[in-house]
């Protein structure tokens, strides 16, 4: 029997849904193959989240608590993960593919001499390792990959698996952690524009995304109004984040966030492959664009060819009526 360990990511005081998706998948793999599904929470208040993790099937939950984990810093995190791996000795250590994960995954693999596959859209156990599918070439192609090793790290794109509740009576194990801040060479000086009450795009059910066509104030107001009506997160194409019109953390695409909401409304976005790479897994895509040949229409379930300034006001009114 081996251990499939899932990292439970905490962001703004909440468990990231994507890490529970990964845990749900690992639980299923563990049940099908006679392995153990375990989880680890590393946070300043790790024990607060234990109960919620229990409902997703972890048989053992490791916690590691220290104030230093309040903000993301790669040096203490690496040390923490290395210690967790010594303690839990996982065959597979699975992560949700967040920016924090991306920051440390390669370093942790090098530190532990473990095999690693990043940003997979699915993975399975095979003899002596794992097989996985990874989107490559701006997500136009899926590569089939394999990793063979005693220890394998894998990070999974958000939205790849469904949440499956599975209440389990888990054993909770606290792992001591101490960190001498004088060991820190890299120093965190400041955090700008932390999200506060904004909707996390990688977990949003509905996303309204703005492109070049909606760059002026009137366009931005319409985007905000539409998002309000739908309770949606607001995203942007690279054109708008690069121009400084929208916050860089809102960028969706190969470079920015990869999202998979139930409903994605692309407004004034032409649909360059780099953008599509970040949103093509949305369940329903609506596109509003005045250029009938815009590539976004090739992937949209509902395409509206028209001027967004004329289409959005009645669209918002109609949606308001439906929501009421």
């Amino acid at each position: 029997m081996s251990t499939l360990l899932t990292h439970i990511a905490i962001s703004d005081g909440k468990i990231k849904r994507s890490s529970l998706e990964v845990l749900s998948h690992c639980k299923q793999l563990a049940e099908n193959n006679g392995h153990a599904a375990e989880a680890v929470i590393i946070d300043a208040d790790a024990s607060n989240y234990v109960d919620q993790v229990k409902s997703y099937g972890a048989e053992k939950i490791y916690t590691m608590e220290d104030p230093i984990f309040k903000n993301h810093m790669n040096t203490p995190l690496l040390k923490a993960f290395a210690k967790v791996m010594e303690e839990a000795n996982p065959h597979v250590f699975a992560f949700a593919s967040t920016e924090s994960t991306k920051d440390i995954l390669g370093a942790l693999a090098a530190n532990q001499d473990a095999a690693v596959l990043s940003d997979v859209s699915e993975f399975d156990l095979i003899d002596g390792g794992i097989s996985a599918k990874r989107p490559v070439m701006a997500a136009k192609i899926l590569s089939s990959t394999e990793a063979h090793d005693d220890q394998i790290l894998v990070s999974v794109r958000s939205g790849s698996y469904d949440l499956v509740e599975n209440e389990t009576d888990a054993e909770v194990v606290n792992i001591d952690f101490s960190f001498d801040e004088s060991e820190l060479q890299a120093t965190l000086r400041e955090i700008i524009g932390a999200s506060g009450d904004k909707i996390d795009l990688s977990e949003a059910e509905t996303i309204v995304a703005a492109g070049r066509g909606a760059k002026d104030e009137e366009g931005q107001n319409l985007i905000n109004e539409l998002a309000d009506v739908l309770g949606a997160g607001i995203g942007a194409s690279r054109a708008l984040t690069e121009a400084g019109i929208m916050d860089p953390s809102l960028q969706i695409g190969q470079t920015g966030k990869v999202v998979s909401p139930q409903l994605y409304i692309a407004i004034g976005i032409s649909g360059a492959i780099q953008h599509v790479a970040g949103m093509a897994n949305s369940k329903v895509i609506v596109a509003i664009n005045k250029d009938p040949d815009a590539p976004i229409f090739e992937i949209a379930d509902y395409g509206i060819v028209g001027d967004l300034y004329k289409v959005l006001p009645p669209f918002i009114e109609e949606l308001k009526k439906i929501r009421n």
Partner: protein
Amino acid sequence: MKFYVCIKQVPDVNAPIQIKEGQLIQDTNRMILNAYDASAVEEALVLKEAHGGEVEVVSVGPDKVTETIRKALAMGADKAVHIQTSGDAEYDSATYATILAKFFEDKEYDVISCGKQSQDTDAGLAGSMLAEKLNLPYATNAVGLEMDSDKLVVKRQGDSGQEIIGLPSPCLVTCSNDMNDPRIPSLKGIMQSKRKPMETIELSSLGIDESELSPKTKVTGYQEKPGREPGQKFEGEPEEMAQQVAKLLDEEANVI
């Protein structure tokens, strides 16, 4: 400031791609400098122009990568190292990091930089692997770099905000393409690049036997991503279209 910028030659993701019997058929004439690495080169040049120093680029690959190295030299890098491989085997991120770590073992530098990922595989692992192997403080996904006395100040895009991180030298940083718009080489730059020094190093001189590099991960095949079919497209009166689509989203797609 001594900058080493690690660059990779990658296929142009905008070029047509074919898959035959699970293998990727690429147009080998459409190989380019990885866009994220181009941003790393650009930023090193900007810092060099402001604070002085030297920018040296390093690339691992078969002889063909010298075209991409010339591009970086034409942008303004001072010199280059080509770590030559046969090009027969496919390397994973860890293999590149192992080769580069051997190269940097006896080098002196202030900053090693590279793109945050390569635009063909999007793995995003080699940078932090290299930092760990060289025991360097590092930051990934940088969207801005500045010098502050002896520290490199990195603005990185985190999960919810931008983190400002001070790194002492030597350090490693991986760059996002949101950092800048890489310059297009001028004609003068291209002429000059032909006279700039490019050293070729064989793997054996780094104490590496190419036949013994055995990646722990491998690609076993490729397939087209199941594509989305275009759905319904509406053209006409804005009010009418708005009404129709809102109704369909509610009653057909069931997502409102």
